[in-house]
């Protein structure tokens, strides 16, 4: 159940386009962003969330970009008085990094982990945004005392469709108070995530539904694209 992470392992993370490299490894995003905490950290615990595949990072980012657009729709009564956006796109930045020091993380999807931590496997792929059980699991992992203390945990990438889920994981790397994750940036890319109306065309007053589960990803510089990806492509994500 213990997995060793070395400098050979690449991690991927997507952030708001305003974020700098120092923000990416600060752990503050997990610390501050939600009053209720996040999937594997309660409020106040610093962690860096990162995918071990591009698909894991992109699916997670698209899910939250979709939620933000859904919030804009929900608030449109007061915010769109002077017109609605015609294109539902969000600029983001995709980061790739490697840890500079070996780390040990616990694969909580492993059967030995289930025995050790007594968690039901269903919680690891539960699409709900109520995170009590996964936060308690993270608390149990982070509470392991030295000399067996670990640096984080890895879990199934919940927002990835099953065809990617078998090989994609989300990693939750603990950030010790006052420090940042020891990591080096490998590369970064300017990314755009767009949601299209079902039936095509721009968003208009006639639009009934947005295809939230099939976002379109595109890179600002077609000559600078992560290996294995096209400059623009669609990838289905899990909403439920």
């Amino acid at each position: 159940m213990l997995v060793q992470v070395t400098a050979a392992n690449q991690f991927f993370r997507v952030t708001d386009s305003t974020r700098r490299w120092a923000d990416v490894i600060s752990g503050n995003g997990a610390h501050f962003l939600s009053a209720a905490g996040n999937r594997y950290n309660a409020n106040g615990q610093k962690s860096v969330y990162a995918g071990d595949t591009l698909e894991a990072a992109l699916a997670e980012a698209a899910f939250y970009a979709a939620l933000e657009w859904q919030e804009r729709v929900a608030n449109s009564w007061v915010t769109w008085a002077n017109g609605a956006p015609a294109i539902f796109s969000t600029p983001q930045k995709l980061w790739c990094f490697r840890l500079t020091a070996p780390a040990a993380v616990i694969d909580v999807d492993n059967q030995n982990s289930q025995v050790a931590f007594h968690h039901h496997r269903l919680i690891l792929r539960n699409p709900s945004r109520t995170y009590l059980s996964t936060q308690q699991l993270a608390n149990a992992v982070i509470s392991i005392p030295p000399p067996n203390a670990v640096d984080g945990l890895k879990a199934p990438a919940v927002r990835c469709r099953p065809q990617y889920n078998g090989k994609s994981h989300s990693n939750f790397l603990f950030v010790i108070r006052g420090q940042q994750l020891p990591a080096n940036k490998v590369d970064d890319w300017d990314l755009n995530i767009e949601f299209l109306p079902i039936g095509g065309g721009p968003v208009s007053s006639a639009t009934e539904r947005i295809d939230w589960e099939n976002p379109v990803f595109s890179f600002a510089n077609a000559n600078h694209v992560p290996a294995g990806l096209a400059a623009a492509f669609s990838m289905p994500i899990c909403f439920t």
Partner: protein
Amino acid sequence: MATSTPNEMGVRDLGGEYPAALAGRLTWLETRLGLDHERILELAGIERSEQSNHWLSDWSDLAVRERARLEQAEGTLLTFLSQFCNDADKARAFLEQVRSDSEFCTTHLPFISRFPTAPEKNAALLGIIHETGSDFIVAVATFLASGTRHPAE
């Protein structure tokens, strides 16, 4: 050929203009959204009685002493701005509209009028803001639009 405004093109990319350091980011938000310095501090939970000399401080000094609370306040302001697709002019215009609409709070947050004093109203608004529920956007707008320069109490 017709051209689109940034809003029509989706969320505006602030990557090139948004400052890197926290002090610069707060100055950017304060200026572009037309906010009261003190109101941002109150949003961060920094009370006048707690650190009276803070009110005269610039962001460079505050960003060091109150980093965690100010980063949380920045997050709230960015979430508010995000609802306008990062178009600061539209967000600022909305705040001006809220300031000039004496019925805005009564219309959108009618229970706030039950609180008789400004501190009680502030506390109630901050509670809504921190819960990030359905009333978040109107609570943030009401909170930011009121204050020392624009007393709505």
